[in-house]
């Protein structure tokens, strides 16, 4: 069985020292090892952004796509080969601005994919513009007088889109984060894990200290029941979305792959391509 070291490669990330993304990388590597994966059976698909570079920093099959499209690519990978573990990842701009349409529909589709958003409330790669996750009033390069749009709540959107696994974590909390990624991978269906990942260079508001002060950990509520949809929604609203832990988990809904009629358990990619003469003639007979 592979250890987390086997998921490391020898590429030095070009993230700024102190960037929250480092811990997310480490958490994915640990979680992959903990759930018993081999590197060749893991596919990491990422978008574009500082965060999007992550697929190049893990020793696994990695695909660094285009801005906002990690999810449709990841779904294609999963449909092609159900035997792979597919992790999609990217920034808050990637998943909640340009890729928001895909995020909602990927949630609805519920393929067995783990989606990890590296949420720094800002556009890092393009050097500090507002993101849908930036707080109202937040001054950025593109909102010099402060953002005048309301903040998007991905957790509420995920809940209302019918998500079967919704979690949130903080990159400093490696233990919780690793456990949540493991749970996400083990969950049969789509898992959204939004991770607060401070951008030390362009976000001077949502800093490590700020999160430590403001975050509520669900572990502190022993009675919290993540299978209760209404309770989950209430908790998200009560905390203004600043909560971490497993927020919602629905194990009754089957993943997309199991609902597609005719879909076989072995990956599509492994099936015979050539039709028999008989099969072909049956198909053409319909046009006579």
């Amino acid at each position: 069985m592979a250890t987390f070291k086997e998921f490391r490669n020898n590429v030095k990330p070009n993230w700024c020292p102190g960037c929250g993304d480092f811990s997310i990388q480490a958490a994915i590597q640990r979680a992959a090892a903990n759930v018993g994966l081999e590197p060749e059976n893991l596919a990491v698909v990422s978008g574009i952004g500082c965060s999007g570079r992550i697929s190049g920093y893990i020793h696994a099959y990695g695909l660094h796509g285009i801005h906002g499209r990690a999810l449709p690519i990841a779904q294609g990978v999963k449909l092609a080969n159900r035997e792979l573990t597919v992790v999609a990842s990217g920034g808050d701009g990637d998943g909640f601005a340009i890729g928001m349409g895909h995020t909602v529909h990927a949630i609805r589709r519920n393929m067995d994919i783990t989606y990890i958003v590296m949420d720094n409330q800002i556009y890092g790669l393009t050097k500090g513009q507002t993101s849908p996750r930036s707080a109202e009033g937040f001054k950025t390069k593109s909102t010099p007088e402060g953002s005048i749009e309301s903040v998007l709540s991905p957790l509420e959107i995920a809940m209302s889109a019918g998500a079967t696994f919704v979690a949130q974590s903080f990159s400093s909390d490696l233990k919780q984060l690793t456990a949540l990624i493991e749970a996400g991978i083990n969950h049969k269906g789509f898992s959204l894990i939004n991770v607060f990942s401070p951008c030390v260079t362009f976000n001077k508001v949502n800093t490590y200290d700020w999160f430590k002060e403001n975050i509520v950990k669900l572990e502190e509520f022993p009675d919290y029941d993540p299978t209760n949809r209404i309770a989950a929604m209430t908790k998200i609203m009560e905390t203004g979305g600043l909560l971490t832990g497993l927020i919602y988990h629905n194990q009754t809904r089957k993943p997309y792959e199991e609902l597609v009629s005719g879909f076989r358990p072995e990956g599509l990619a492994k099936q015979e391509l050539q039709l028999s003469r008989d099969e072909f003639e049956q198909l053409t007979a319909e046009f006579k």
Partner: protein
Amino acid sequence: MISQLSWKIGGQQGEGVESTDRIFSTALNRLGYYLYGYRHFSSRIKGGHTNNKIRISTTPMRAISDDLDILVAFDQESIDLNAHELRSGGVVVADAKFNPTLPEGIDARLFAVPITSIAEELGTSLMKNMVASGASWALLGLPLEVFNKAVEEEFGRKGAAIVEKNVEAVKRGSEYVLELAGGPLEDFRLEEADGKQKLFAIGNENIGLGCIAAGCRLMSAYPITPASEIMEYLIKKLPKFGGTVVQTEDEIAAATMAIGANYAGVRTMTASAGPGLSLMMEAIGLAGMTETPLVIVDTQRGGPSTGLPTKQEQSDLNAMVYGTHGEIPKIVIAPASIEDCFYDTVEAFNLSEQYQVPVIIMTDLQLSLGKQSCEELDYDQIRIERGKLVKEAPEIEEKALFQRYELTADGVSPRVLPGVKHGIHHVTGVEHDETGRPSENARNRQLMMDKRLGKLAKLEIRDALRVDAPHEAPELLIIGMGSTGGTIDEARARLEKGGRKTNHITIRQIHPFPTDLLTPYLERAERVLVIENNATAQLANQIKMHAGHGEKIRNLLKYDGTPFLPSEVYQACKELN
């Protein structure tokens, strides 16, 4: 006896025009006639005039006809809008209910059949189409059993009672009209067909069939006219082969999902029309840059923007050839017949894996939706070639990466699928080195650009040009693409009869442009006429840019939404200077 005939049915959209046409033409196909259909429809679902025209012939042909022999009209509007096409001595079968009249100056025979009342007597006005088609079938004096068999198949699912009623409707319609006409029309008696078994399909169905034959097991797509039939065909068939169709949230998802699936090893395609193609542009670049196979069908319709969404046009050529920013290798193939739709689709999947490039199959509305006779498709011609796809990767030291973008003599590198041990590599749209890792190194950049762009240097697809060039030095060379070939053939035959030496070439490999193949034909022709359904002569401009001879080249352009008629092409050639 006549060897060909054209028949049209018109009415309000949703009134049964489609099903009447379907049954009528299926029966004709069974009798072995060659058929070529043309649908006139609008974006509305109910209401609005619609008509279907079919040309029936004892010999192969692939064009709509200039004129019309029989018009079946459910309303006066259908007569008013279409009567001008009737040849003198033509026939109109119309519903007596609206007291049909022929516009002034139209020399045709009008048979007013109480179509609606017969249908209502039998229980429902829904059966009007059966009364009407029965009437027109009877006028042709064709065997009723064959027609009834088609009716049976159309309604079989709904039970014997319904079939019986419809057969009765056909009978009543035919009896009524034969009484009026005093028997079948002798001047409309078709010679017997060759009886050869043929398929009868639309281009989109043959593309769908081609996908399955090529081993494509997944389609991700977003509905759009005139591409949706591909998706609808595949969703019916793919589950039997373990595959499926995903209707995505948009075409960006459709194209990127297809890229993900191709990367992971399943032959996957998407299909759309102009608006969707526009949305796919960035994804096409990703496929080109990451050397991931991808097959896209663009069924062209009237642009720009929403344009003429249900009408014929060939105006996406530039978008297909040039689309996406930066420079990537890409193949654009234009099937030019219903058979091509099948064989080219199979080839597209092979090319996309052999060269690891996006391949666009370019059709146009008329080719995608015009239902027509198709020669039997040859199973033995189906070959699946996956190029340099490797099943296993040689053992390498721990953490070393598979050389997915290895620089090779032909520019194509070995490809391995996720899941394979020792095959791990990186894939990115960022410029990368041989292992796929990002690299901004100037020398690497140049090597990688040359590698990718060089892959198609020698590409020549099957029938890159379809050449009909009996003359060594013709007065005229006509060049076209897509669905216009059959129309040009007919115009050319008439020109030849008049003594004009004319060659005809259909360009099927649109990109990379087959310059060397085309040049000798251009050189030897006195004059070249390029025929295309767009306003800016996109094909002619490709020819001029790659092969020169601009001084000889003239354009025949049509962008009013309708396909060329043989007479229009003939006239333009005659007037050409």
